[in-house]
């Protein structure tokens, strides 16, 4: 029992479970799943589907935070990837009335992901080679990135007409949303890479003590570079899912505030912002907590604006619970109370 409580995923999982129970109390059909037209339907599936972009971005963010970094440019990278894909696919009507892609779909997807990964690499270079603080290094792309995306679109919202592209954000595979498969696949790949190879250990050692890791022979700078590149790539994947879902790319609003939600998801999942220890599964739970909370607030008929206040209260609570000082005070109070009684 004690081991269970002290497991890093215990509190995130309990929070998510409580939220799900609360949701099912407000909405009696919340937990029901239905099989219709070869797809699985239900509120839970809906939450998983909507959480997919956040999960993907948060996975990248977890690794960046694990190596003592931070990437606040992911929202801008989401916008850039979405814009690149939308511009390359576009879609015009041919003489036969069929919608055609401007470039082959695979080329557009690879280019968008490549650009996103390059954005991540750029952040990594600024952090590793130029030695900037991660917040500052990624702040540059956060400020300029949306400008670049707007420059590409000329300030317009780019609409995509080419139907095969919509599969990413709206399609189903084996009865489950494609976006969900993508997120799960990414998680699984990352999980295997981190547990079956030494990569996870290296990342933990860099975050725990960069100097000690360097002395021990861990190639810290190239791993950090890879981690930032991966974070950019993950943001690119999220950008594709988002733009495919809304069938357009909006340079101004795509991925707005996503960096904050991602950092929140990572924190909620039990990864310390000081680096070193990270919880990949915790991050997924954290992202699901955020999406469940959002969906719950919507379904309760409370104005969606309240969401922000609830989120803020949640962050404050989680932060305090993670703080050793706060735990110390609570423990002292509890002991004091025990002595009095």
């Amino acid at each position, binding site marked *: 029992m004690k081991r269970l409580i002290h497991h890093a995923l215990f509190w995130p999982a309990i929070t998510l479970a409580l939220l799900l129970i609360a949701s099912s109390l407000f909405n009696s059909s919340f937990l029901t799943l239905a099989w219709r037209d070869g797809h699985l339907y239900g509120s839970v599936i809906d939450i998983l589907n909507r959480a997919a972009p956040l999960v993907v971005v948060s996975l990248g963010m977890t690794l960046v935070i694990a190596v003592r970094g*931070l990437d606040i440019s992911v929202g801008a990278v989401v916008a850039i990837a979405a814009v690149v894909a939308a511009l390359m696919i576009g879609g015009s009507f041919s003489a036969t009335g069929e919608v055609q892609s401007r470039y082959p779909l695979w080329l557009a997807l690879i280019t968008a992901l490549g650009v996103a990964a390059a954005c991540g690499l750029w952040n990594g270079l*600024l952090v590793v080679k*130029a*030695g*900037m*603080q991660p*917040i*500052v*290094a990624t*702040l*540059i*792309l*956060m*400020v*300029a*990135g*949306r*400008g*670049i995306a*707007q*420059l590409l679109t*000329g*300030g317009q919202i780019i609409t995509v007409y080419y139907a095969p592209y919509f599969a990413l954000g709206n399609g189903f595979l084996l009865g489950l949303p494609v976006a969900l498969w993508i997120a799960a696949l990414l998680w699984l790949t990352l999980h295997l890479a981190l547990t079956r190879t030494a990569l996870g250990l290296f990342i933990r050692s860099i975050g725990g003590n960069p100097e000690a890791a360097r002395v021990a022979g861990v190639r810290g700078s190239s791993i950090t570079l890879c981690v930032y590149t991966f974070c950019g790539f993950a943001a690119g994947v999220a950008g594709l899912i988002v733009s495919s879902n809304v069938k357009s790319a909006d340079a101004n609003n795509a991925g707005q505030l996503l960096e*904050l939600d991602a*950092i*929140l998801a990572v*924190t909620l999942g039990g990864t310390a*912002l*000081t680096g070193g220890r990270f919880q990949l599964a915790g991050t997924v739970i954290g992202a699901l907590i955020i999406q469940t909370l959002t969906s719950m607030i919507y379904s309760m008929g409370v*104005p969606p*604006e*309240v*969401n*922000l*206040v*609830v*989120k*803020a*209260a949640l*962050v*404050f609570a989680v*932060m*305090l619970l993670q*703080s*050793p*000082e*706060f735990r110390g005070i609570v423990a002292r109070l509890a002991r004091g109370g025990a002595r009095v009684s």
Partner: protein
Amino acid sequence: MSRRLLPLTITVLLFLAMAAFGAVRYDGFLSPQVFLNLLIDNAFLCVVAVGMTFVILSGGIDLSVGAVIALTTMISAALLKAGWNPFAAMALVLALGAAFGALQGFLIQRFNLAPFIVTLAGMFMARGCCYLISTESIPIDDATYSAIAQARIPVGFDSSLTIGALIALAIVAIAMRIAHSSEFGRTVYAIGGGESSARLMGLSVDSTKIGVYLLSGFTAALGGIVMTFYMLSGYSLHAVGLELDAIAAVVIGGTLLSGGVGYVFGTLFGVLILGIIQTLIAFDGSLSSWWTRIVVGALLLLFCLLQRLFEGRTPKMP
């Protein structure tokens, strides 16, 4: 010249170069009013950036300022609509802003939490509270506010300043005094240089850290009041992303984001540079507004790289 003044000198020279470029390139650019407008249009940014300078000098960051501004405009507008005395409303929002900042500072200091996350949550909280008041824009038709908004103080050469711009200049002057010749200011620099050494020197680190965020909350609220004069409305989407502009202004003004080095006076020029970029783009007419973001990003990059160069050459203290 002292090495510490180098970033500040570069900032001022850059501003002068941009002004010269504008003067040569565009007719009518070189008029006093164009330059005073830089101050008038960015008065709220200037006020906020001054508070942000102290936070960054102490080695922290405050992401909540944009949201606090929006909340201030919202509360002001709601109070005025309810028939409050305008000056009582101003006093209340200033007190609320300071209290909000102090609370964040308390959490950061007492529980050793990351400033980034605490102020991020503070940003969510303040924006959320705006929406709780109203999701619509609330216009302000109070006579005193309108009078202050429309007042123009002539400064000669057919040009004038607004009350908001004067407030901004006053805040810069007061902040320079606090930063360079008060115990609080010296302690802020010492904390930014190294918190544990500041503590060992017997400085009041704890109260100063809270004080820094209190000051930032206060300047954010004051910036909000200045913005209310400028916009004459309260709206929950006012000042979205302003925290980034403020941080950019501080960095471009030559303050090191690692803390301990920088000048309030530089921040004034950081704000003016952000302003002159927009003015140049407006004068040009053919460039779209998103170029502002790209140029600001490029300038940030330039200054951060310069800072790294500068830091690399300074001998490291043991």
